[in-house]
């Protein structure tokens, strides 16, 4: 079982890295790109036997307590769809 956690800066927090990238992209001739926000991406592998409720609780806790700094960042979780 795999979860993907995407961490981004809160919309209200200035992202100097994103701004710098966006400016560079403009100077390479892509003026249509009006904003870039940089974030982080974590692939998290879990044991398959874990119950659904526990699984969600665990990944929430991991994202909230470790992978993000709640002062400046927020996160979302994408669950891998088993085909």
């Amino acid at each position, binding site marked *: 079982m795999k979860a993907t956690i995407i961490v981004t800066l809160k919309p209200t927090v*200035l992202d100097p890295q994103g701004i710098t990238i966006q400016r560079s992209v403009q100077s390479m001739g892509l003026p249509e790109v009006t904003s870039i926000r940089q974030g982080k991406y974590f692939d998290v592998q879990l044991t398959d036997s874990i119950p659904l409720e526990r699984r969600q609780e665990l990944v929430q806790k991991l994202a909230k307590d470790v992978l993000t700094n709640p002062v400046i960042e927020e996160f979302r979780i994408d669950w891998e769809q088993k085909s």
Partner: protein
Amino acid sequence: MKFGVVIFPGSNCDHDCYYAIQSVVGRPAEFIWHQETSVKGFDAIVLPGGFAYGDYLRTGALAKFSPVMQAVKSFAEMGGLVIGICNGFQILTEAGLLPGALMRNSNMKYICKFLEIRTETTDTPFTNCLKQGQVLNIPIGHGEGNYFADADTLKKLEDNRQVAFRYVENPNGSIHDIAGIVNKNRNVLGMMPHPDRSSEQLLGSTDGKIIFESMVNALAGRAL
């Protein structure tokens, strides 16, 4: 009176702090390896600058899980003096011992230079030998020193006079020009500038020494 200087994997100002306290200020200091689970016997704890855990994940984010940090937390809760310098400040915010966060400098550059900070309060164990408004000549060396806190937190910091130092000229985009803050109980200080690198004339300034001397002064007062 004994100072403990914590060493995390990646700390690189541990010896600077040790030297400033032991040899310049003339008070006993000992290193504490981050795997220690107790800080018993120490009167003040220093979290030095550097790049704990290589700044992986976020600056200071992994250091908060080092076993010693539980002991430092309890020590701080009981009123023990804790000073975090540079990376130490980042660790203190990540560990929840100080509010706010330190973000990438607004100009995206690592800045290493001497600058001036203004003393905003003398009512702390770290600034009691300074004068209100006293300007210190002190170096910074960081890429992530851009202090940020939400409006509510900032209001509380200002209302409780928890801002210890402000930059005279803001180098990194810090909100309210903040260079250092104390916690509500005033026994934990975090600051980006380096008193350890400005404690003797050979290094260009002795202003930083007054911060360590203030701690000595505060601890001496407690012992009475």
